[in-house]
């Protein structure tokens, strides 16, 4: 699964702090402030209670036989493969885009930055329709793709990846851009004065410096892609084996068999939590 994980740049990047602050800062001691603890725990409860609802209602006695059904594994495999490739696509396109937004002055930058968040605001189903209008069989680009290369994206696994990448990319871009803006520019300037080209500066200085942001963004992006429903079902359709990912299987199961839907949701949750938790230990410095 780690195909989107960056090569060998661990937490021990340029640590130690640009501002000369000790990296292993001592914890602020003293009484925990109620003003923070109470809302924090309420927030946690709010996020976790729906999960508890699923766990309480799960048909534990038939859980295993439901899991063994081949279409469950098929949907799970498809979900994981598509979310991972979509994240790779987002990394390849999104990191440079974030760099452009954070490091290059150009007219209309604010507008571009706002446009990047469009997929966040757009209801995913509308996003799916928009993708159809552009990349569909009669879409602006899709028409040309089909005529020139014989490629049609809707109703294919590639279509699932496109839909997921469209919806998930803003998470990566925003997170990486934030990291870039917070990073100390003096290191880049120093490298530049020593004769490094902008590309070298990016590769050898900037990227290692913002790697935690890239990883965090990649994780968000992957999680969003994994749970993607609306854009996928609208743009890529729903057919077992090619485009029916777990969220689609869950939605359909909900129509007739709510218990099966709960099982499927729990599988998706469990798998994503396991993957994210193990990645976190490896790639993100423990907080």
């Amino acid at each position, binding site marked *: 699964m780690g195909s989107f994980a960056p090569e060998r740049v661990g937490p021990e990047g340029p640590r130690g702090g640009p501002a000369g602050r000790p990296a292993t800062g001592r914890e602020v001691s003293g009484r925990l402030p109620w003003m923070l603890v109470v809302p924090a*725990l309420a927030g946690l409860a709010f996020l976790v209670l729906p999960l508890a609802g699923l766990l309480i209602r799960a048909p534990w006695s038939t859980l295993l036989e439901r899991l063994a059904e081949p279409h469950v594994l098929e949907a799970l495999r498809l979900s994981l493969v598509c979310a991972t490739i979509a994240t790779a696509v987002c990394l390849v396109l999104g990191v440079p885009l974030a760099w452009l937004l954070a490091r290059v002055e150009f007219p209309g930058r604010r507008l571009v930055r706002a446009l990047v968040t469009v997929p966040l605001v757009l209801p995913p189903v509308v996003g799916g329709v928009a993708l159809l209008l552009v990349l569909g069989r009669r879409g602006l680009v899709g028409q040309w793709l089909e005529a020139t290369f014989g490629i049609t994206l809707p109703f294919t696994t590639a279509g699932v990846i496109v839909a997921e990448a469209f919806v998930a990319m803003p998470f990566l871009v925003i997170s990486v851009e934030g990291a870039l803006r917070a990073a100390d520019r003096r290191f880049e300037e120093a490298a530049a004065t020593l004769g490094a080209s902008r590309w070298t500066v990016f590769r050898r200085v900037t990227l290692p410096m913002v790697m935690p942001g890239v990883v965090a963004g990649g994780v968000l992006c992957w999680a969003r892609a994994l749970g993607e429903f609306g854009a996928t079902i609208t743009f890529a359709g729903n057919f077992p084996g090619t485009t*029916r990912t777990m969220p689609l299987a869950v939605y359909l199961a909900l129509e007739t068999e709510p218990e099966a839907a709960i099982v499927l949701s729990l599988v998706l949750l469990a798998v994503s939590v396991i993957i994210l938790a193990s990645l976190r230990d490896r790639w993100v410095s423990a907080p």
Partner: protein
Amino acid sequence: MFRRLSRWAIALPVALALAGLSGCGSGEPAASTATTSASSSASADGGAKEVTVFAAASLTETFTELGKTFEAAHPGTTVRFNFGSSATLAQQITQGAPADVFAAASPATMKTVTDASLAGSPTTFVRNKLQIAVPQDNPAKVDELKDLTDTKVKVALCAEQVPCGAAAVKALDAAGLKVTPVTLEQDVKATLTKVELGEVDAALVYKTDVIAAAGKVQGITFPEADQAINDYPIATLTQAPAGDLAKQFMDLVLSPQGKDVLAKAGFEAA
């Protein structure tokens, strides 16, 4: 000393959270009474009355029109609609959503509500038949059901779990045909969208949906559709917060005026 205090600072909210958790475990009846009492108190004050109708997505246009008729006939009354997939609506009702009337696109979804003793005995008020929908220019030259079996024809069907998909399977079985669709959509409107956008060459949808999308798609009738007719049942809910108004709305749907509106949209008389 500080340690102690901080432990307390954590313990109390955790206890509260757990209390919330256990409340959630036994939750549904409490939740439903809460919502019911809220809406009945709303209808009690000052004569502002409300009827909440849960109806299948395919009834969106006709029921919205009937709702306006009802409001005109009962001044001071508002009709609120919740349109959606019949199965989803049935689930919302069994989970305690405060509804007065339920109109479903299939007897099976109505049955989940009547089985839970939440609705009175349902009446079938209309029927809906499938048609083949093709894009306006009919690129694949489809003119009968058999044409959908051609592998070069891209076909969208509803998933078997939703009523239009079940009907499609029945019709294809009746015709002895095997169709491999490119997609199994989650509801009939999504299936139709694929045709409207020209992403597929044909789809099986309801006649009413074809009429609602007039100008964007063409409908083709086929004889096997008669073997897959969908009944639409309607019922008032036993705990209807609006009481008599619920019955009156159902009467309007069943009246000649209601039937007229539904017939114009392409529904067949029950």
